[in-house]
């Protein structure tokens, strides 16, 4: 084997080794790499309910209820298969709203509801001008009638 070929094999082996270890490590810590759990995963018992975790999904349409005179808000997080009622007291990010993605950090209660300590808005990958959004909304309304 020429020295050049040796160096080629060496660097190939090192990269392959690091790639395999990274894949194994990420696989082993899979649960910790997830930023949030969906209501379906929680229903299936996959979420670490004994400690705090993040719940992610969409804010269900028509579910947001504010308590007069306080910062407390109740809403339902859904992935359209399962739903979890969430209660939160605090300031909300700009993008929070019904039909929008949300990530809530907190604890699952005995009764299956979720008490959040922090609310983050999750933006999706769609960008469009307001007119297009309105047209889409009209189209969807016409489709459901």
């Amino acid at each position: 084997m020429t020295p050049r070929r040796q160096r080629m094999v060496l660097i190939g082996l090192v990269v392959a080794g690091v790639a395999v270890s990274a894949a194994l490590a990420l696989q082993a810590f899979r649960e910790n790499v997830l930023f949030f759990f969906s209501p379906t995963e929680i229903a299936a018992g996959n979420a670490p309910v004994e400690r705090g975790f993040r719940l992610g999904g969409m804010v269900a349409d028509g579910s947001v209820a504010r308590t007069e005179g306080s910062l407390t808000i109740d809403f339902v997080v859904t992935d359209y298969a399962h739903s979890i009622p969430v209660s939160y007291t605090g300031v909300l990010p700009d993008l929070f709203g019904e039909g929008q993605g949300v990530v809530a950090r907190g604890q699952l209660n005995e009764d299956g509801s979720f008490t959040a300590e922090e609310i983050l808005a999750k933006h999706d990958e769609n960008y469009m001008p307001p007119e297009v959004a309105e047209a889409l909304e009209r189209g969807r309304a016409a489709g459901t009638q």
Partner: protein
Amino acid sequence: MGLKRTFHLLGSPPTVYRLAGLLGPWVGIGAVILIAAGTYGGLVLAPPDYLQGDGFRIIYVHVPSAYIGLMAYVLMAVAAAVGFIWHMKIAHAVAVSAAPVGASFTFLALVTGAVWGKPMWGTYWQWADARLVSELVLLFLYLGVMLLRASFDDRDKGDRVSAVLAVVGVVNVPIIHYSVEWWSTLHQGPTIAQLDTPSITMDMLVPLLTMIAGFTLCFAWLILKRVQAEILDRESRARWVEQLVTGASA
């Protein structure tokens, strides 16, 4: 034979120096024109987003920066591997040149992301997000390669050792790219990776693609200039450099 000849020509410092000098101005002019056009398109022509209003416009810096940050790493790793395997000095010079430029664009992507994240997500930074953390690891890889190289007095040794780290770090590139698909993340999924059905309207997309092209040329221009400087530094004792310098000053 043609390929081998090209390879040998690209290994010749004076040839590469002259080639970079010839290409540089054109690439630079192209970068200025495209970035100016993309900036006008992004700030003036593109409509505001239905949800984020004008806040979405940071995409015109954030996405191109993140893209260059990744592309620069791939270039650095490939150049480092070529330099390591074939003991090609020009390849090491390219790897040296790419590192600080890639680190700067990666830093820019992290900062613009954080500035956007605060009002939109409600947070500057989340340690549990796979996309955010893997992008930070990219910055540390760049800094690690630069520091490792700088810690050797012997330039050849520094080239070889830092090349190994640069090549190994390439494992992080697909992790960054696919992090938003493999795991649940706060960071949104790709908007323009699937070019047949982009999740963005044309009037917003065209300025973005213009900016990406402009940033790419800007990156190429920076690399050409830095490779020239690196060659002069490495070949400072060579006769052709002496002739170049005395010829220019005469």
